[in-house]
């Protein structure tokens, strides 16, 4: 894929036939990403490779670090240097990153981490699909935090949602995870990239008060403080220790409550604005399928087939996995007799649905443990079982 538009070379406006990985890279470039720090890992490496090719041309920098820990640390540094930054990895690499993702969460550093999921645990199935890192994206790092994770189901969405990840990351000031899977990452489909003017691009809010008045961790009602970065004269003070509004370490329960509560609440209280869902034939459904990523494609296939047979079934596709759409599930639990969750893991989203459904409907996971995806026929069978 080569750039089409000389005026905004970061946006490869036009029609392409490409992979989810390349689309995610292009979406990131379109969002304004100027720094990629990463370490190769199957099945995500094509993202790094594409960024290595594209970034230098738009005066961005690609650094292949010595490992994933350096990569995440490097992109946090770059974000504080004032540029949008990202990395891409898969399960084993994400596991290595969790400590410093925590630093990003605590210091409220915007950046994007792509996890192209493969089968796990451990080295598992390096080249085959898994959707087993859903819970890790939420709970992988120590300490209390809320976070955002988004899951695309086709190549176009890899572009759109990569861009969205940057927007959310800048708006809410946190590392956001684009949780892809191997099939989406390696699948080729048509991708249409609009002209730059048609894209909505959000960047971090900047402080307006002068440096000597500025309190870098004081937030207004949005709960998200504006972000001064290095070199702007604000003499930012950034620490992973519990800190006060000045950013100074303050190792007291009171400071901890204030700081940690806010970084959690800025997501909890803005859930509705953040969460994206696709509802498909749910209106009259008595059975709901809840699914995401590649699985959701098979699920849609199953819904189509079932509807042809007259079965009242619909699909709730979770585009946003975290924050979890508790309210929507609760509502759905009131409506349907059964929720089926096809997922390529041993019951991760199913657990969350179970929690949010409050016992009001039957919740049934349909699990594959990795390496292969459900077929529509298999899910249809599950729908028809009763």
């Amino acid at each position, binding site marked *: 894929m080569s750039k089409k538009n000389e005026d905004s070379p970061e946006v490869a406006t036009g029609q392409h036939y490409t992979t989810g990985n390349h689309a995610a890279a292009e979406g990131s470039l379109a969002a304004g990403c100027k720094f990629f720090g990463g370490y190769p890992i199957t099945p995500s490496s094509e993202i790094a490779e594409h960024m290595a090719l594209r970034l230098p*041309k738009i005066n961005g920098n690609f650094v292949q670090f010595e490992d994933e820990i350096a990569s995440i640390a490097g992109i946090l*540094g770059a974000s504080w240097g004032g540029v949008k930054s990202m990395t891409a990895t898969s399960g084993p690499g994400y596991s290595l990153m969790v400590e410093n993702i925590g630093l990003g969460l605590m210091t409220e550093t915007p950046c994007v981490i792509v996890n192209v999921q493969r089968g796990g645990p451990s080295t598992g199935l390096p080249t085959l699909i898994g959707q087993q890192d859903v819970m890790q994206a939420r709970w992988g790092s120590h300490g209390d935090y809320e976070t955002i994770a988004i899951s695309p189901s086709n190549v176009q969405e890899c572009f759109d949602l990569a861009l969205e990840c940057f927007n959310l990351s800048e708006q809410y000031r946190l590392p956001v995870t684009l949780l892809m899977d191997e099939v989406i990452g390696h699948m080729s489909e048509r991708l249409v990239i609009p002209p730059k003017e048609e894209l909505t691009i959000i960047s971090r809010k900047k402080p307006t008060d002068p440096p000597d008045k500025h309190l870098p961790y004081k937030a207004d009602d949005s709960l998200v403080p504006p972000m001064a970065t290095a070199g702007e004269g604000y003499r*930012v003070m950034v620490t992973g*220790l519990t800190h006060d509004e000045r950013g100074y370490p303050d190792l007291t329960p009171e400071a901890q409550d204030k700081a940690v509560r806010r970084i959690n609440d800025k997501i909890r209280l803005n859930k509705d604005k953040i969460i994206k869902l696709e509802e498909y034939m749910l209106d009259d459904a008595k059975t709901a399928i809840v699914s995401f990523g590649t699985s959701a494609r098979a699920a849609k296939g199953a819904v189509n087939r079932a509807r042809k047979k007259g079965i009242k079934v619909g699909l709730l596709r979770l585009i946003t996995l975290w924050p979890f759409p508790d309210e929507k599930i609760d509502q759905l639990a009131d409506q349907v007799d059964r929720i089926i969750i096809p997922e390529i893991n041993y019951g991760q989203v199913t657990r969350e649905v179970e929690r949010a459904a409050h016992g009001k409907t039957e919740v049934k996971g349909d699990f594959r443990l990795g390496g292969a995806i459900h077929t529509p026929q298999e899910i249809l069978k599950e729908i028809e079982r009763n």
Partner: protein
Amino acid sequence: MSEEEEFQLIESDVHPLDGYLREGRIPHIFCPACSLGSVMNIIVEAIKEAKLENKKVSVVSGIGCTGRISGYLNYDSFHTTHGRAIPFAIGLGVTDPERKVIVISGDGDLFAIGGNHFIHAARRNADITVICVNNFNYGMTGGQVGPTSYKGQYQSTAPYGAVEEPFNLPDLAASCGAVYVARWSALDVRRMKDSFTEALLKKGFTFVEVLGSCPTTFGRRNQLAEGKKILEYFHEKSEIQHGADTKTVGISKDSKIIVGKFIDIEDKPTLTDNLMAVQRMSKAKGK
């Protein structure tokens, strides 16, 4: 007797460098007779001496007593995670080639958990100045043995004495490609300041090892329980050997301590130079 007569020195509430420190953060948390305060002092003096623009200076640390230094300094400062100051600094640095990024951290932070980043940054000739305060142990966590502890040194996790060969930091830096390498003890404040200044004014990966006094967790277990004893020890054992072959500057118990400027290489392309070159090439080639 008047106050003046009693104390004779002129009493004051502020220090000329207070403006370079974050308001309200002094007194710092360092123990009595810990040289970290001195090093902090000297870093500020060196930044002044090098005439760097304040807002173009960033200070990055990992975790540890030494790592706390960044947070006291009134520049853009980043107190990251344990061992990760260097890659953070690299990311920070490449976003603005005019920025001077200083990494200041401890021996454990930079050479135990962070060792890999150090050798790679030196190899890449990343544009950062790394200052390591080597106090021969992990001060912050209560005095465990570390990769610079000498054989026979007692620490909480070496109750029978350390048995491993320590790293020779200047040699490690040199063999991985650092363009400037110096070592001073905490007593050599003026030479330290000169080295810091030189390192700050140089492009590429520059490294200064400072032998620090940690009376609390190192000294106490090794018959050097007072900071003044540790400085005395440095004073007795130090020998200046500019340009010494770094292979020869390893430190062992009761050996001489070779200090000085060991390496000062000119004109080696730095990471920033290389990234710029890639940008140029990418535009030349129609790939």
